[in-house]
């Protein structure tokens, strides 16, 4: 879907990962920006995790809390709804993106709102809210620094925590200078933030309607928690007359006390800080303090279907810290855009295909070398490699039924390999055939420099040593006979 002609990270339209990645790999500046930024965040995280002797216990506890919430999701959501409503909030339920967008536009129309300020929320990017609202005549102003950069520069987010991570400060300077009319702006970080402050201040004071997300929803009390670094969130949460919170149904935590664990692991994992600078918690509405009208929109959009699958349910434990993106050696090369989704990196590779019911983004489960570092850094212990492999199996099970796959080199090769591995004599015969067959490709130096077909993907950058004259098992057999 493309609303108002804007380019959107859309898993339905996105090219397959290998193709999209190739475009990014040729962008040397972008790769440098991504590698530098992720290296910096990762080093900070590593330092702060190392200072917690109970880090593994915290991870275990965080993953248990998330599992408890997911296992009893229905009753906790109802509890949240009852508590939030009792304290003056209005709770709405949306089954999918279209319903969520319509509900939000409906509220804005009731408010006669022609402008809205926003706190960074990936869920709104997931439902492609901004282009929809703009097309309906509502002006949307992002207030998070990174989101301002993207909005003014007409760029796409590439990371779930630091969405403008692929943009460096000289590029930020260019965007601000051009769109804010500040031709003598320097690329000094302080000057850039001052420009953003100036741009934002009027928006905060003049626009009485805000849309935000939630890091956590507390079932016990009906409270909503938002953590942030810039204070723009706090401005959006306290100044406007009307506040709309859009949250995925999986954001629920059973108890207020669970925040003790979750906030510790989140800040350390996300930004490499002991505590994030601003943590806002509010419950319903309080007369004379903060928004007068408060709406919470609980979004499903494929989450119930993920929850229903026993092995994949752990995907929904995710607290969107982005640690797996920062640690991933694939993401480090490609950045976020190659994933064709607002959720990139290892978590995106498992989340995006599942959110689309495995109908789209089928190349994403293969966009990983299965190195396992994502699982190692995940604060809620999502076994991403295990899920990647499981999703690959689902893709294979779907695809292999299709007639077109009968002679597809990969599918044919896998079936033949299975036959060869089923009998040692067949395997040994295939080894002999491979050696004979590879002779034509083997150069005088004993190495293969170029192969046809899929082998060419290997030899584009790597040589392959020619097949040795004697396999190990043949050597063993000869040795045994000689010793008799």
């Amino acid at each position, binding site marked *: 879907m493309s609303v108002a002609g804007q380019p959107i990270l859309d898993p339905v339209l996105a090219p397959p990962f*290998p193709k999209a990645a190739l475009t990014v790999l040729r962008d040397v500046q972008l790769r440098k920006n991504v590698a530098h930024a992720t290296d910096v965040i990762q080093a900070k995280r590593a330092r702060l995790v190392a200072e917690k002797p109970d880090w593994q216990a915290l991870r275990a506890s965080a993953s248990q809390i998330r599992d408890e919430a997911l296992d009893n999701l229905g009753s906790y959501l109802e509890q949240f709804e009852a508590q939030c409503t009792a304290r003056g909030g209005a709770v709405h339920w949306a089954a999918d993106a279209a319903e969520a967008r319509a509900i939000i536009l409906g509220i804005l129309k009731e408010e006669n709102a022609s402008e809205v300020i926003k706190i960074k929320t990936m869920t709104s990017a997931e439902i492609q809210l901004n282009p929809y609202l703009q097309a309906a005549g509502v002006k949307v102003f992002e207030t998070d620094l990174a989101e301002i950069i993207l909005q003014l520069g007409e760029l796409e987010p590439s990371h779930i925590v630091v969405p403008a991570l692929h943009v460096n400060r000289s590029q930020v300077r260019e965007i601000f200078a051009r769109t804010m009319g500040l031709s003598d702006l320097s690329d000094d970080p302080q000057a850039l933030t001052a420009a953003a402050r100036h741009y934002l201040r009027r928006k905060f004071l003049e626009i009485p309607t805000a849309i935000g997300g939630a890091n956590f929803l507390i079932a016990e009390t009906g409270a909503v928690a938002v953590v942030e670094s810039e204070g723009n969130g706090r401005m959006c949460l306290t100044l406007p007359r009307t506040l709309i919170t859009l949250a995925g149904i999986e954001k629920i935590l059973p108890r207020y006390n669970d925040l003790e664990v979750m906030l510790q692991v989140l800040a350390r994992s996300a930004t490499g800080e002991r505590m994030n600078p601003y943590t806002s918690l509010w419950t319903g509405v309080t007369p004379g303090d903060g928004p007068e009208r408060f709406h919470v929109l609980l979004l499903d959009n494929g989450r119930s279907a993920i929850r229903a699958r026993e092995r994949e349910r752990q995907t929904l434990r995710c607290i969107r810290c982005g640690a797996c993106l920062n640690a991933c050696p*694939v993401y480090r090369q490609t950045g976020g855009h190659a994933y064709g989704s607002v959720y990139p990196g290892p978590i995106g590779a498992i989340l995006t295909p599942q959110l689309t019911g495995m109908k789209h983004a089928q190349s994403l489960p293969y966009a990983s070398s299965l190195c396992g570092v994502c699982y190692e850094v995940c604060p809620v212990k999502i076994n991403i490699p295990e899920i990647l492999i499981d999703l690959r199996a689902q893709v294979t099970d779907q695809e292999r039924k299709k007639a077109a796959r009968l002679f597809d080199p990969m599918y044919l090769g896998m079936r033949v390999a299975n036959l060869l591995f089923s009998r040692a004599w067949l395997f040994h015969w295939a080894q002999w055939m491979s050696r004979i067959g590879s002779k034509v490709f083997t150069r005088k130096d004993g190495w293969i420099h170029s192969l046809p077909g899929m082998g060419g993907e290997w030899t584009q950058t790597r*040589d392959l*040593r020619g097949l040795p004259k004697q396999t190990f098992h043949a050597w063993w057999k000869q040795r045994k006979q000689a010793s008799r």
Partner: protein
Amino acid sequence: MRASLFITCYNDTLFPETGRAVVALLERLGVELDFHPAQTCCGQMHANTGFRAEAFSQAKRLVRLYRDSENVVIPSSSCVAMIRDQYPGLFEELGNEQLRGEFRALVPRVYELSEFLIDRLGVEEVGAYFPHRVTYHASCHGLRGLNLGDRPLKLLAKVRGMELVPLPNLERCCGFGGTFSVKNGDVSSAMLAVKLEDVLQTGAEFCTALDNSCLMHLGGAMHRQFAGMRTIHMAQILASTEQMPAEVAG
């Protein structure tokens, strides 16, 4: 002590010198080795590419082949990780109770080479001599899959004549990833370029590891680039002595 060698399909086909080194090393340490001629593959390639039924048929084959072995030694971390991490799920989904029982009985007796030397045989000094400058690459499956920790470095530290140069960013993947290297050949190559920069910067003569898959990847790029460094499986370093220096191919 008796042990069965599972050489793995790609070591059998592409790196027989690694197998010969394992034999020389373990026999020198007094292990009575046997080799089951019917062995083929552990099923890792099929499992990681999403072909569960095929992976299961190879897993079943492997468990039946080795159910009577006292110990199984495998000179490949990723194949050991396949057995420990993926077989339980495959047998749970596709196997029967008898097979699950046979697997549970076998799995504690399956060892990666450095685990077998240190945990089972209790040796760190294996009598090796390898007078070269070497850097060690920790494969992802050895590092995070098997948690080999400092076992490989303990073994390498005792090799006489060898200078061990630490590799920066040790925890970073080389970009091989099995079929990832051809399905995502461009990204894989970009990851390899980053890893190779670190490896070559050590100025070592050899890069060693416990997985020939990573070494095939790194070595293939070294050869392509005339990089002046070669790869060697750790078994070949540990088997090397003054009288019988390591066979180095390529």
